[in-house]
């Protein structure tokens, strides 16, 4: 027979951790600096969280001073370093692929969209005819959150309505 207090503890534990995490994400995703990146895209679906646009972010890397897979992109001088330089005010930790000289920060390469708009927005992104960008908020500790997506300078919601 399981102690009734154990059941209560199990409920409180699950909800306390879940809500704390939600609160942390909510607060963290609103404190930092915003930066815009160009994007190009492909592939649109997740069984649990729904439809989204996945894209490749163009970080505009100018130079690399590392050959390591794990790297740090300083956004001040657009240079990839093996780790965060003390002089760098704003940047992102991620992976650097030396074969195509590309930097990737996992976590900002998708944007969730309602099912009804998924197909046409994906088509618009793939076509390459529109100037697509994302607005990313970067916190002091290097976490990044996608805040908005733009097509030709128009916020994605308005753009989706426009091409309806």
């Amino acid at each position, binding site marked *: 027979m*399981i102690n009734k207090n154990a*059941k209560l503890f199990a*409920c409180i*534990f*699950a*909800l306390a951790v879940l809500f704390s995490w939600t609160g942390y994400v909510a607060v963290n995703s609103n404190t930092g600096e915003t930066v815009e990146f160009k994007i190009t895209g492909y592939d649109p679906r997740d069984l649990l969280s729904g*439809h989204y646009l996945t894209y490749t972010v163009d970080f505009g890397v100018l130079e690399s001073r590392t050959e390591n897979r794990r790297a740090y992109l300083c956004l001040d001088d657009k240079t990839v370093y093996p780790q965060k330089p003390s002089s760098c005010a704003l940047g992102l930790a991620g992976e650097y692929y030396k074969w195509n000289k590309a930097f990737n920060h996992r976590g900002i390469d998708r944007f*969730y969209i309602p099912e*009804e708009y998924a197909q046409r927005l994906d088509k618009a992104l793939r076509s390459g005819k529109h100037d697509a960008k994302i607005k990313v908020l970067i916190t002091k500790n290097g976490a990044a959150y996608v805040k908005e997506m733009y097509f030709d300078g128009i916020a994605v919601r308005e753009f989706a309505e426009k091409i309806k």
Partner: protein
Amino acid sequence: MSLKTKLDDWLKNNLITETQKTAILDYEKSKAAKSNWMFYWLIMLACLAIGIGVISLIAYNWWGIPAWVKLVCGALILIALAAGYALFSQREKTAPAEICLSLLCIFILGYIGLVAQIFNLHSAPHRGVLFWVILTAPLAFTARKAIVPFVWSAAFLCIIPFELAQYKFMETLLKTIFTDHPSFAGVAIWWFAFFVFLWRAVPKIFYGFDNIRRSFGFLLGLNACFAALFMGMVPFLGSSYSPDFMWLFIFTGLLWPAAALAFVKKGTRRIWFCGCSLIWAGIILYSSTNTLGVFADMLYFVLFYLYAALYFDLEGRKKLCNFFLIASGVRLIVAYAQLSSGLLGFGVSMITSGVAAIALIFAWFRYKSTALAFAAKLFGEAAK
């Protein structure tokens, strides 16, 4: 007044002894477990439908509702379910408590998806499940019925290889297996070894399961893991990858050998059924779900399960019979899902169907004798 309260009262008044009280409680418990088996399965199936509906609604991802409203509503539902679980457990009401627990676990997963969606979070695919496994671990261990621990175990075992694959040596190992030895036989042997190891070793290490019923649930979980892992490895085999209904399809396909496997005692038969599982997985994996069309596919599987149910009913194996009835129900849900054109409509229809099913099941079990008596009056003795 519950039986336990009554017995406590009798004990207090020296009408029965402590031993008699324990004996009565044990007897009633075993009797209730036998008679309510079908009831619990039906309820769990309805919960599954509601859970799929909730996840579909989240997956639909509507912009019209502000983020904070979605989060607060989700939080309120979670709190209500947790309170329901705690409350019903306090009152020794097992069925409603287990329903609340199942829904709570499903909603926690849904809520993780919701937060990821609202804040555009993205991590390695299995990390969301890993987070869910950690959050629900204490809940799974407090469950009184096998279904939640079974799903939890399946998820837990599913994420281990994915988590290990994050590390260089595992990535190398998997790539060696699936790129250097891509034949189906090679893959099958690898999985067979993995499956047998999990089947034999894991239950003994973590759970000490001796009870066949528990092993049965656990084996189903292993099959689910097996199917999910197999699907996850398809990119390594160079085939196209679609996680949609294929996953559920494979799962239902694997139920048959898994069930047989759990109830057969001879070692040779076990190996035969293990082999069957692998063949089933292979055939279904490499064939299209739409080969026969949605209805024909559904009919094929439902009739197959109903046939198995009938066979086991004739054999007097009630549990197996009930199990196959449930399997046909799961296959119907899959077909139901395939018929729906949009996530919104599907989500709403699944939730309403699940709620209606729970209401009907409760009503049936509550008023079964009244309903049968009424039917007997209407149609005469033949209705009995």
